């Protein structure tokens, strides 16, 4: 039995069928890359997996339990980094990370220094988000992954706006996460040089 499985997931948004009877299984140490053209439903699929949208049919099984039965427990299994960075522009980098450390129980302060080091945020800690570039904002958003204890990562275009060095840093932490029995599902247009399963969503 796989740790994470989706069965016959179908989704209609704005009267448009995005995907029908989608199935996949993912085990520990496995990476799934969702590919597809703009509007094919990559973000929608990730939002469904994160519980932010409801599919019209199908089920999501994690650790042998149905997502609907787990209710809020389900949220503890994953960390979701969406298309938006989900950071408050009037707050500093430190205040944003502290905000999430306070409200999200799956985040731990233990790895705060590590997150800052990996994403080169030391000099930006007390800078307001509104004064950062788009790449720097993405780094702040991705640093939550280091703080997270969650087993599954759902990531929507994680390398958007990142430079070469930080993209490589991201792949490094992704590999480490997978080696530590983690799972990841990523929607990306970029080439990710890590052994992975792939699904292609097509525009209907």
């Amino acid at each position, binding site marked *: 039995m796989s740790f994470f499985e989706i069965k016959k997931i179908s989704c209609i948004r704005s009267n448009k069928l995005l995907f029908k009877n989608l199935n996949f299984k993912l085990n520990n140490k496995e990476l799934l890359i969702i590919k597809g053209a703009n509007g094919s439903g990559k973000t929608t699929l990730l939002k469904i997996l994160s519980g932010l*949208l409801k599919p019209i049919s199908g089920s999501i099984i994690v650790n042998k339990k149905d997502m609907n039965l787990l209710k809020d427990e389900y949220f503890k299994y994953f960390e979701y980094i969406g*298309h938006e*960075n989900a950071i408050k522009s*009037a707050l500093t980098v430190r*205040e944003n990370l502290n905000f*999430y450390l306070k*409200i*999200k129980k799956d985040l731990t302060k233990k790895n705060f220094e590590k997150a800052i080091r990996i994403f080169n945020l030391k000099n930006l800690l007390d800078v307001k988000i509104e004064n950062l570039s788009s790449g720097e904002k993405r780094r702040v958003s991705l640093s939550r992954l280091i703080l997270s204890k969650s087993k599954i990562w759902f990531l929507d275009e994680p390398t958007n706006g990142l430079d070469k060095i930080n993209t490589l840093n991201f792949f490094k932490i992704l590999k480490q996460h997978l080696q530590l029995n983690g799972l990841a599902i990523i929607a990306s247009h970029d080439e990710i040089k890590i052994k992975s399963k792939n699904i292609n969503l097509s525009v209907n």
Partner: protein
Amino acid sequence: MSNFFNLIITDIKISLRKKNESIISILFFLFSILILPLIFQGDQDILKRFLIGIIWFLTLLTIIFSVEKLFENDYEDGILDQIYISGIPLETIFLAKSLSIWIITCLPIIILSPLLLLLFNIQTEKLANIFISLLIGTPILCMIGAVTSALVLGFNKGSSIISLITLPLYIPVLIFGIEASNSEIIFNQIGQEFKILIGYLLIVVAVSPWIGGLALRLKYR
């Protein structure tokens, strides 16, 4: 409970940082009151008769403008999604956002209003009345506004119709708020108007978190 206070403290911190945005609604309120002598051409009697009503009406306008995008900005930035998947109940999120907008927008108005009455030489016994009636009435206005804002977010279409539908809910607060502010004695015996306002407040506090939470949940379906 700690999450509830964390959300409120963060919102207040942001509004203090965005001084221009948060101060503009208070300036709108103050400026509108201070130009009244010009509108009434210095006629003190008319001004005194209508001042309390105008304060209540401007309070309502200030609240409507402030709560309009109470949830929308956080939703568009992806922050509401993250708060939602952190497992905090949507009802708690709704209550925290409503309370923070009340602290940011209404507390200054509640404190300033008696001082404005003093400035216009209104009987001093009415100062306590307006202070207490605003203290009871403004949370009702904020929560109705927050429900509207949540409904607008929940239903993608027809936002202007939703705003119009909820508009009549504000009117009892205005009627009884103005009556309570103008009533004679409140310390010896609580007036009927105050009792009705308190009753309305209790109903809104009991019901609105569920409606607000339900409206936000529509966004996640």
